[in-house]
């Protein structure tokens, strides 16, 4: 194994999974939003819910399709680049991945088609059920993938024989110490990401005086959800952080750039962490706040990186900064929520142009926060793939050379830089067209297009549903 093959393999995995995670981060929330709209339509029979639901179902179909296509790559990367990791952990982790695949396939096959194409073919209750099952399916996928990821962070329920992990207790493996926090944190993050996109799209229409009633509904629902979830996410984040302090203290020391073990530690708002010299430059510290936040006690002791040999230190600057980006975005979200209530109280929520512009600009914030959070937790896990037990350097495929991985990374870079812009532009166009009452969705992944044969007008006519 060459050192460059290791670092390039890490970059390649980061590149592929970072693009992939954007889609589930969005579709998990969107599937639930669509399910809520479908239930509301079924219950109240107001056409506006149907219009909004059909509109977001079109966007859902494209992003879900791209999520599946980019997800196919992931399991193969475990084999091609991380074969020693696969050999060592498969007995424990592979069933979790396989259950994700099976259940996603099961629910997708059985219910996605009904959700996308079946409104005219099945009774109304069955369509609602399909929407609920698809939402449940995305949550189940998150469940299994995060169980596997959390096990890598806080392994439990296994025994280690000759360098390979064997299962002892499946409940402990799945419900390992960091899993509940990570699952809650990620699912709420996904809901927030979706809510910000819905909010941004609603603001986009309101600023242009289009689809006013639909946009008000979207905006009101999105802001209502954010009002609950943003503060909740701060709370879950705090619990998750305390869980990290208990089980991955070295990661936490890196996130907070703490080099020495001490009580009354400050909170470092900004610094340039110098890993070589093991100290912070240009630090902006708030005294005692670090102890207070991390241990909920201003006298609390927080361990510094000096407690571990250097060979076990994670990178410091990257988790330090990405964590601050994530928290900074959370602060922006809180400001947005507070501003929305202030405007709502004055009856100007849907008309304050500056606020609408802010909502538009805020729509990608959820994605940025998710990426920043993932970089924090995954880089902070280094130098381990299975925390404290299996080193990343011992996980990579021994046969690879730097050139091999450079070539494959270039391949993934080129292909993703073509596919994603085209897909995003495609979704943007759908947004520009707006919720026009059409219910036939666009399905990239199954190749079922809105109008299969565009040249033939007769086909387009039969595809449109007459509004009820």
């Amino acid at each position: 194994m060459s050192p460059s093959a290791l670092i390039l393999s890490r970059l390649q995995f980061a590149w592929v999974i970072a693009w992939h995670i954007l889609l589930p981060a969005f579709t998990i929330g969107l599937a639930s939003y669509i399910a809520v709209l479908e239930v509301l339509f079924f219950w109240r029979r107001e056409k506006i819910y149907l219009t909004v639901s059909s509109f977001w179902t079109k966007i859902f179909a494209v992003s879900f399709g791209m999520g599946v296509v980019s997800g196919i790559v992931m399991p193969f990367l475990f084999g091609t680049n991380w074969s020693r990791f696969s050999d060592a952990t498969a007995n424990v982790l592979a069933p979790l991945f396989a259950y994700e695949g099976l259940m996603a396939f099961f629910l997708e096959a059985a219910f996605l088609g009904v959700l996308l194409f079946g409104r005219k073919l099945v009774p109304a209750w069955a369509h609602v059920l399909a929407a609920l099952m698809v939402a449940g399916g995305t949550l189940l996928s998150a469940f299994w993938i995060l169980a596997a990821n959390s096990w890598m962070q806080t392994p439990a329920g296994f025994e280690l024989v000759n360098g390979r992990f064997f299962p002892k207790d499946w409940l402990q493996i799945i419900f390992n110490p960091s899993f509940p926090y990570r699952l809650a944190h990620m699912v709420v993050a996904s809901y927030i990401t979706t809510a910000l996109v819905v909010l941004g799209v609603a603001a986009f229409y309101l600023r242009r005086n289009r689809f006013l009633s639909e946009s008000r509904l979207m905006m009101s629902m999105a802001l209502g959800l954010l009002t609950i979830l943003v503060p909740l996410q701060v709370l879950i984040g705090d619990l998750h952080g305390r869980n990290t302090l208990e089980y991955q203290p070295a990661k936490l020391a890196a996130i907070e750039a703490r080099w020495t073990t001490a009580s009354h530690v400050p909170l470092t708002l900004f610094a340039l962490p110098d890993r070589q010299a093991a100290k912070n430059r240009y630090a902006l510290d708030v005294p005692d706040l670090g102890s207070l936040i991390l241990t909920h006690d201003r006298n609390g002791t927080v361990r510094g990186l000096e407690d571990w040999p250097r060979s076990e230190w994670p990178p410091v600057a990257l988790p330090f900064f990405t964590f601050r980006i994530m928290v900074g975005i959370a602060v922006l979200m809180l400001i947005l929520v507070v501003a929305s209530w202030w405007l709502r109280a004055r009856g100007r929520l849907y008309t304050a142009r500056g606020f609408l512009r802010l909502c538009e600009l805020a729509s990608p914030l959820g994605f940025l926060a998710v990426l920043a959070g993932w970089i924090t937790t995954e880089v902070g896990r280094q130098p381990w793939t299975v925390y404290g037990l299996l080193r990343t350097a011992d996980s990579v495929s021994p046969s690879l050379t730097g050139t091999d991985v450079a070539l494959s990374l270039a391949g993934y870079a080129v292909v993703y830089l073509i596919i994603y812009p085209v897909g995003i532009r495609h979704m943007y166009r759908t947004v520009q067209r707006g919720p026009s009452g059409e219910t036939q969705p666009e399905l990239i992944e199954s190749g079922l297009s809105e109008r299969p044969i565009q040249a033939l007008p007769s086909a387009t006519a039969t595809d449109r549903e007459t509004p009820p």
Partner: protein
Amino acid sequence: MSALIPDFVPLWTLILVLGIFFYVLLDGFDLGVGILYGFAPDAASRGLLMNSIAPIWDGNETWLVLGGLALLAAFPLAFSILLPAVYFPVLVMLLALVFRGVAFEFRYKDVPHRTFWDHAFSYGSALATFSQGIVIGAYIQGFKIEGRQFAGSSLDCFTPFSLFTGVALLFGYGLLGAGWIILKTEGSLQEWARRQARRCLIGVLIAIGIVSVWTPLADPDIAHRWFAWPRIAFFSPVPLVTLLLAIWEWRSLGKSSAHAAPFLAAVGLFVLSYSGIAISLWPMIVPHRFTLWQAASSPGTQLFLLTGTLFLLPVILMYTSWSYWVFRGKVRADIGYH
């Protein structure tokens, strides 16, 4: 292995063998349609060809993921040796499948670049197929292994034999694809597919012949497996039935009343080639090195996953069959699917 824990390896072998076969058969014909797409006479036929597989190709491709995950979960040692050994073919296959997958939709949506996406579709299908053929060839030849890891270079998999099996699979999937087109279309497009199918059939038969001579000559184990008495008596029907199927295929391609026969005969040829490989390798899952049992995951792992699989897999199979039933019959230009 403790006497109390039953041996799950045979069951997992069956699931894996069936899963890979479903993949090869199902994605094989839609990749084959993609390969022939590049040769289609006009834009209208290209539209029909794409429509003939649009509703089902994604389900077909999911078997690749399930097959890969089943290999990782049930036989992780084989997974972790095979995949680094075929690093570049797997890379090219994945990228080609991604391109080809999005081409289905972007061809309709991204009209200014339609020619680009048409090419992405046909070249993507051909490249994915060629890469899978290289994987099969490299797999049959075996890998350089130290301990539990592949110890060769990422270029080892490119041999004259594996490049040959890559080309062979292009003809094989082309034959399946042409059979599917004959089943799903009528008139001049069907006639065109019959001509393509005959070309592919000639290629397939030459390939089967060469592989059948090449592998026993290159690999004494395989020669012994096939030709030692009394096994030759059990296995000799395999080439005989292959020959009969080839004759049936050729004849049905000439009969304009035969709509399903060319596809069925092509499936038959794939079943036999597949079992030929299985006979050559059994019971090794990493050729020359590890048996199915040596490469298997722990019984606890196999049991845990089996519990859910035995419930979910039949449902998935039922649903898949149902969706094929829904989209049965000829594709027609004047009817969009719903």
